[in-house]
């Protein structure tokens, strides 16, 4: 009981802190240039100029390309490839989205990607959380050796191993399953993610042993402790791990290209499918398909923006 009270107090405190932080728009501590310098007449003018320049240039550089992604998607083919280009669509052809959707089978690819991503997320949450919990709180014999071997794989760059991984997935040792072309070819390898284990274990380590002990006194099994004590307390890190895992599947290219490429009906992810459509599909349809592919991620980002950004910095560093 004390555990839950302490937890809800902490959550309230965290919410309070976050609100307070949001209210203070300007940094509390001084930065490179002091507020005093900026409040001088010359400072004010320079600051205004720099601010305007930064906003204009950054908008052009980062939003500009995306502007063309969405405007070119509705231009007819001739207008897309005409020189000089039109800055805005002179004739709007919304049918491009429909054409791209049916010709490239975007709907199927979108569904595939979501299916792979959610499945990989489920596998990672189940097995990586269980493993991190075991390594952090249950501490089995040889646990430290296993942890070391897992973390050691962080040193091995992923792309280097594509060939033996591919050969293994095509013919699993002992089982002799061929996973190529199945969703498991993406789901199962995603569990072997040392970074998840590291993040989760570090977070679980920070949960005081008192909570686990108290649960044990109340007769909770190891699973009940994980499910009812540890998991509810770990929501922030679970959010970080979930976002990383969804984004990873969404953005992966080489692995899905190897294991899900060339089936009818298509089993490709959006990322691979769009690349593959590069040949023989008119430019405007390709751009329309890219635009459709970009929309879910942009929405996802705008909704989970705060979690993603804090996860990026607080959850550790990932290139």
């Amino acid at each position, binding site marked *: 009981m004390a555990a839950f009270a302490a937890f809800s107090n902490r959550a309230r405190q965290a919410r309070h802190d976050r609100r307070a932080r949001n209210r203070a728009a300007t940094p509390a501590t001084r930065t490179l240039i002091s507020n005093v310098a900026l409040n001088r007449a010359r400072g004010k003018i320079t600051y205004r100029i720099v601010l305007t320049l930064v906003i204009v240039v950054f908008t052009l550089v980062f939003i500009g390309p995306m502007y063309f992604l969405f405007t070119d998607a509705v231009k007819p083919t001739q207008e897309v490839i005409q020189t000089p280009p039109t800055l805005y669509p002179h004739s709007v052809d919304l049918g491009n989205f429909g054409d791209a959707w049916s010709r490239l089978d975007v709907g199927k690819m979108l569904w595939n990607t979501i299916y792979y991503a959610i499945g990989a997320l489920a596998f990672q949450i189940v097995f990586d959380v269980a493993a991190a919990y075991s390594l952090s709180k249950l501490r089995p014999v040889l646990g430290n050796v296993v942890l070391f071997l897992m973390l050691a794989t962080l040193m091995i760059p992923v792309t280097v191993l594509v060939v*033996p991984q591919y050969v293994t997935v095509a013919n699993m040792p002992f089982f002799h399953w061929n996973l190529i072309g199945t969703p498991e070819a993406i789901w199962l390898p995603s569990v072997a993610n040392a970074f998840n284990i590291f993040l989760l274990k570090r977070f679980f380590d920070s949960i005081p042993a008192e909570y686990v002990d108290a649960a044990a006194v109340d007769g909770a099994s190891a699973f009940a402790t994980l499910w009812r004590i540890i998991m509810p307390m770990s929501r922030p890190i679970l959010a970080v791990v979930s976002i990383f895992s969804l984004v990873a599947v969404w953005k992966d290219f080489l692995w899905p290209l190897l294991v899900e490429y060339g089936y009818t009906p298509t089993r490709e992810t959006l990322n691979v499918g769009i690349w593959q459509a590069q040949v023989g599909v008119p430019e405007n349809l390709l751009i329309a398909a890219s635009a459709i592919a970009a929309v879910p991620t942009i929405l996802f*980002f705008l909704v989970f923006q705060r979690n993603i950004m804090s996860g990026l910095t607080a959850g550790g560093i990932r290139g």
Partner: protein
Amino acid sequence: MANVVTSVARRALAPPPVGGKRRKALLPRARRNGTAWGFLIGAVLAFSFFSWYPIVREVLMSFQKPVYGGGNTWAGWGNYVRIFRDPTFWQAWRNTVEFTVLALVIGYLVPFAVAILLNELRHARGYLRIIVYLPVMLPPASALLLFVYFYNPQYGLFDDVLHFLHLPTSQWVFQPGTGFISTAMVSVVIASTWMNMGSATLIYLAALQNIPGELYEAAELEGAGIFRRIRHVTIPQTRLILVLLLMLQVVATMQMFIESFVLTNGGGGVGNNTLSVVMLIYQYAFAMSGASNYNSASALGVVLLLVLALFSGGFLWATRERD
């Protein structure tokens, strides 16, 4: 309250104090270990099949060759000799180093400069952070196809801009030539930086916000200008992150694949001038119809692994804390 609970729990969990037989203590311990391994086993199996075994297997495969009719036999250094004799191997390494260096000059310094700039602004911070990070969230193929379209020599936007400014137009990624700073590779680096720089920028921003303001105050009182403050306060204070990201970035850029693969539609550019090592692994293993060779590809993978391991090890050694 919590303390009482804990001490009770400790007593309940502690092995019985009676000396007696050790068997009695062994059984619960075995059961606890069983439970713990039950939780661990899924991840251990996944690591065994998809991480640990492939690592071993890559080394084994690099010393094997297939036998006609099935099976493998030892090949000694044969695969290594074969890839070292392949001129494309050296070309791919040269390109990869070129990409890494260019990506460092552009992709490493630009995010840091952008972070310093954004940290000084008192307005529109949220907006700027979001738009800098937005390209990172796009599916890479979408982002790169956009650049394919911008770079297109016939109707691409970039050439139109150059034309409008009365500058000579370019073939961009398909510009022939293999000088150390080739137009083709710079084009790849530009696209790569655009779509990747957001994460580094945000990590730097977080690091900058942890610098104590008094340091800048003190430096300013001693008469240090903006650049000397950056040199003597900002950089030393963020050194750890700078060094770590430098290493991660080099390791990541050495594995460049999708950028060149999509921009050149899998080809590797004119005369392979943007072909990277990972692309060559892909070509050896999967793209040479009929002649695909997992063993040569494994040998190349081992070489890349060794180079990256040597680099990371050497880098960590060279930048270790010396006190």
